[in-house]
């Protein structure tokens, strides 16, 4: 919403400075987006007269002009290239040091082809007043008497333009008067009274009938439609002041009739329309559109209407869309003689919907979709009639009104104490009353049980809280006292949930393992979603921003792999990335799960990546991923030894080099492994990638335990370590060997570790491998004898053989 200072002053008696207006507007909720102050930009430019023009000695296209820039002072020598520069011309002069807005150049004293120019005679383009750059500005000759005065004053351009960003609840401020009313309430002046109009109501009946053709259910689309016929107008360009006003707020003057409607729309937030009555066929009616109907709108484009849109039509069909745009064929032109002025009320919701469907963004829609003052139908009609009569003459008919405005007064029960209760501001009843009255409310009753009648132009005020807002914003938000929120007694209590704590620990665990945390999009290409177990139609966006961001991710790996690929392309192939975030198995809240996933590419291992004098890092493998997954589970308090490792990781992993960590058949804790070559190919990644996915929600809740740790069971007897090497079938899992050995004597065996795996040589040919374990025995009562050790060793060998068929390697 734009307006100029002088326009504001039509409604507001004020001497507030531009800065004060800006500050107050923003403080009360009318956020100032910009102020274009010509005084700041064009204040230096002066009216000046060319006393003499002569040829430049060194240039054909240049002249030397002697310019009178101040009464009674000697003229200045100025170099000028304009073809229209001539003796006697009164124009606009920029002294040295002036910044020329059109070129953003500051004038300096320097010779132009050998002659020093003491300033510049300017074109309209240089002042950014128009695109005219062919010649310098020519003012009327009688302006010679005003040489030396500021050009913007002489030309009436010294009128700062304000642009405010209106929130959608303030239709009243789509007119300058509404803004003036708010400023007056905030103490920045006095709202001027409305002028009384006379002579607008004519004596004859309008020859054009106006009908509302709605069913009971849809009557709210256009509950009131008023019109007045004016015959014998002489249309033409509107007067300069009106054109200037419109131009200053970015509107294009068209002709007097159209300009009047645009002016009142901007001045009062009251859109109107003027029809060339001679082009109307039969009665004008408001009704819903019909399928198949079309019309040519004022913007020169044809629009199809449908049954949800409110149209204004005559016998020939739709003329325009109510509240949105008028028709090309029925509008007024320079030759229009008889007109019908329309002033109506269109339903905000329907107007907004029509606007969205057609994509039309118009000044009328801007106002009607916010809610035009329904009580302004007749005053608006009168105002338009008055201006039309004054500008283009003619004879008005009686106003014809179909329907009635939906303007039943809204009365709110209001206890003034609500203001203090909601805002904390200490404020007197009298001040509350004054503020509400200045905003147009009428009040009755006492402060603790007031009845407040809301003005018709404020459809946004419905209840006590709204009235509190009005009082608080006008009284000033800085009057709200800082009030400490009462603290719970004592030391602050922990607040995080188990899940939130898991996320924190998992995140920092992975970062401590050298992985870098990334955040990738929640939506990914549909193909990637499908490849990673997703792509369910219910999880595909209906209106994605692009196909690359169209499907909710089933897991975090696709986003991480894309990031890995991008890093790869930038020369970082040894990237190790992780993400901790949500993914989606379905559309329900409980289908959203939390995952900690990561990828390691190239040689990005825990111990470091790349070549190094102390030994180059090898390529990443499944054990790197397994270690990451296990580290996360461990950090979350899970006894990883209790988890089973199975070979059933999903399809995107290498089938032979991946696994799943689980607790029983149902609870999947994590997948880990090298990625399937086909997966890597799909992402265009060369070389191995080790990946893991840990499912934070799958980890069982820890049972509430005593915070005291169990007593340390340390034994002073020396532990005994024995090594066993087994020859096994190649397919035997090391985990099974370890499990069998550990179970051979639970009392004595404290730990079993694998210290060597050998595949190859003669064993390879037999389909065998060698696996060596170290078993730690912890005696508890007395030192083990050789016999004791012998006995345990036999049990271990037997247990492993029973479980895996493995023989002790001889």
């Amino acid at each position, binding site marked *: 919403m734009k307006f100029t200072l002088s326009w504001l002053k039509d409604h507001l008696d004020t001497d507030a400075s531009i800065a004060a207006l800006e500050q107050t507007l923003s403080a*009360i909720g009318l956020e100032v987006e910009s102020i274009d102050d010509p005084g700041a930009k064009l204040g230096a430019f002066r009216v000046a007269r060319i006393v003499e023009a002569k040829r430049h000695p060194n240039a054909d296209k240049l002249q030397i002009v002697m310019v009178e820039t101040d009464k009674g002072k000697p003229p200045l020598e100025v170099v000028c290239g304009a073809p229209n520069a001539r003796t006697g011309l009164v124009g606009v002069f920029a002294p040295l040091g002036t910044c020329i807005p059109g070129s953003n150049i500051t004038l300096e004293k320097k010779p132009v082809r050998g002659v020093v120019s003491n300033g510049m005679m300017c074109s309209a383009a240089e002042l950014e007043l128009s695109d005219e750059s062919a010649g310098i500005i020519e003012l009327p000759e009688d302006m010679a008497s005003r040489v030396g005065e500021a050009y913007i004053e002489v030309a009436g351009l010294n009128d700062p333009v304000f642009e405010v960003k209106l*929130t959608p609840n303030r239709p009243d401020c789509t007119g300058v008067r509404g803004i003036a009313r708010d400023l007056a309430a905030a103490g920045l002046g006095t709202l001027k009274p409305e002028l009384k109009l006379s002579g607008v109501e004519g004596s004859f009946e309008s020859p054009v009938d106006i009908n509302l053709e709605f069913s009971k259910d849809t009557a709210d689309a256009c509950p009131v439609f008023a019109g007045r016929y004016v015959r014998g107008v002489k249309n033409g360009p509107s007067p300069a002041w009106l054109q200037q006003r419109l131009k200053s707020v970015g509107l294009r003057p068209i002709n007097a009739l159209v300009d009047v409607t645009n002016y009142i729309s901007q001045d009062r937030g009251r859109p109107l329309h003027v029809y060339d009555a001679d082009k109307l066929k039969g009665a004008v009616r408001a009704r819903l559109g019909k399928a198949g109907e079309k019309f040519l709108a004022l913007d020169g484009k044809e629009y199809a209407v449908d049954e949800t849109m409110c149209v204004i039509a005559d016998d020939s069909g739709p003329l325009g869309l109510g509240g949105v745009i008028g028709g090309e064929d029925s509008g007024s032109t320079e030759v229009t003689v008889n007109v019908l002025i329309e002033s109506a009320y269109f339903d905000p919701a329907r107007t907004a919907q029509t606007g969205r469907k057609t994509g039309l963004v118009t000044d009328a829609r801007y106002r009607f979709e916010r809610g035009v003052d329904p009580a302004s139908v007749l005053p608006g009609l009168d105002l338009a009639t008055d201006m039309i009569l004054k500008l283009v003459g003619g004879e008005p008919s009686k106003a014809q009104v179909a329907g009635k405005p939906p303007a039943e007064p809204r009365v709110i029960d209001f206890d003034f104490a609500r203001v203090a209760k909601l*805002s904390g501001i200490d404020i007197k009843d009298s001040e509350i009353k004054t503020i509400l009255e200045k905003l147009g409310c009428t009040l009755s009753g006492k402060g603790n049980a007031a009845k407040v009648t809301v003005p018709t132009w404020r459809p946004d005020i419905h209840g006590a809280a709204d009235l509190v807002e009005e009082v608080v914003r006008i009284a000033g938000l800085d009057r709200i006292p800082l009030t400490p929120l009462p603290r719970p007694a004592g030391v602050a209590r922990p*607040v995080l949930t188990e899940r939130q704590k898991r996320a*924190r620990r998992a995140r920092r665990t992975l970062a401590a393992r050298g992985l*870098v945390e990334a955040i990738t999009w929640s939506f990914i290409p549909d193909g990637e979603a499908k490849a990673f177990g997703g792509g369910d139609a219910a999880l595909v966006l209906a209106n994605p921003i692009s196909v690359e961001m169209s499907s909710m991710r089933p897991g975090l790996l696709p986003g991480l792999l894309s990031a890995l690929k991008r890093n790869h392309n930038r020369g970082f192939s040894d990237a190790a990335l992780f993400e901790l975030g949500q993914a989606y198995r379905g559309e329900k809240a409980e289908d959203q799960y939390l995952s900690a996933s990561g990828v390691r590419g190239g040689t990005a291992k825990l111990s470091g990546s790349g070549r190094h004098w102390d030994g180059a890092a090898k390529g990443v493998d499944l054990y790197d991923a397994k270690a990451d997954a296990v580290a996360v589970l461990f950090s979350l308090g899970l006894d990883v030894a209790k988890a089973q490792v199975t070979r059933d990781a999903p399809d995107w992993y290498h089938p032979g080099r991946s696994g799943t960590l689980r607790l029983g058949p149902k609870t999947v804790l994590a997948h880990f492994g090298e990625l399937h070559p086909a997966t890597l190919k799909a992402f265009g990644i060369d070389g191995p990638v080790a990946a893991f996915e840990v499912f934070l929600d799958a980890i069982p809740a820890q049972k509430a335990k005593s915070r005291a740790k169990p007593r340390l069971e340390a034994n002073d007897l020396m532990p005994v370590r024995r090594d066993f090497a087994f020859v096994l079938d190649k397919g035997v899992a090391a985990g099974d060997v370890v499990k069998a050995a550990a179970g051979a004597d639970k009392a004595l065996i404290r730990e079993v570790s694998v210290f060597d795996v050998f595949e190859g040589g003669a064993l390879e040919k037999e389909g065998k491998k060698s696996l060596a374990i170290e078993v730690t025995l912890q005696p508890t009562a007395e030192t083990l004898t050789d016999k004791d050790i012998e006995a345990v060793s036999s049990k271990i060998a037997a247990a492993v053989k029973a479980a895996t068929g493995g023989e002790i390697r001889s």
Partner: protein
Amino acid sequence: MTSAAAADLQALEKELLASIAGAGDLSAIEQVRIAVLGKKGRIAELMQTLGKLPPEERKSFGQSVNEIKSRVSEALEAHKADLETKALSQRLESERADVTLPVRGGAIADGRIHPVSQVYDECVEIFADMGFAVAEGPDIESDDLNFTKLNIPPEHPARQEHDTFYFNPKADGSRLLLRTHTSPVQIRTMLSSKPPIRVIAPGRVYRRDSDQTHTPMFHQIEGLVIDESTHMGHLKWVLEEFCKAFFEVDEVKMRFRASHFPFTEPSMEVDVGAEAIGKPGQWLEILGCGMVHPNVIRNCGLDPDKYQGFAFGMGLDRIAMLKYGLTDLRAFFSGDMRWLRHYGFSVLDVPTLSGGLSG
């Protein structure tokens, strides 16, 4: 003992001491030791001659030999110690390593926490101290929770401001969407718990917007307090305390401007004086807030005549950018190792109130 014998002994001692002094290294001295002091060494040999001596000479001869043995042993030990010292110095000299060879920085030096996660933790730390719990909710939401219950009816112009990602309509015409703010979490909280309520709701939100300064996914953090007496003064205080703590400054300038949101009444927008980030003279728009609209309270099954409170919301990414001087929002989600390494945080930078949020 005859003087000749005494002279022999003297000569022998001299010889032995010379052989000790002549030993150049530890193995030579060991050989000398064996040759002199060993079971079959010179001293032992000498002692064997004792029996052959006349009894009157034995005592003085034996005494002299023992004295020699003692002096020679001493000399041998001393020389051995010297040689050991020398040998150690030589060894140490030869074991000189190039201490300038670079070592790996290690995993802790390589790993990073994303700025959004870091700032999330910072905010949780601050608000937890003021008694706020952390509430969460799903990204895929219903129209009802994202809009309607928040006092945004289907035709409200505010729905046009939120460019919403929708899923395809179901048979009954309803359609799910990606939440456009974390406010549905406030609704879920009010629906599922009784006042007093103090929560923050951080998380991912989505709007159909993509340009220099907007990404279709970003992060918000919202706050909600509902009880019977919390008013705008408390809201102002909480925000000011938050800003001081977050930007880690003793004073912060704040500007409150009236505004409009469908879910709060009265509503305010808040600017922070950019002194807080070392840019005096500017204002930074950082958040919107207000008193929860009575309709919203009613929609959650609470009595708006009894319960009141405030809500606020701000961009987590935005405050991260302001605090840590990040300029490009799009880079947050690019997974670019260069950016993450540079702007990310060490795993050891755990924000705490006692140690300072940024350490």
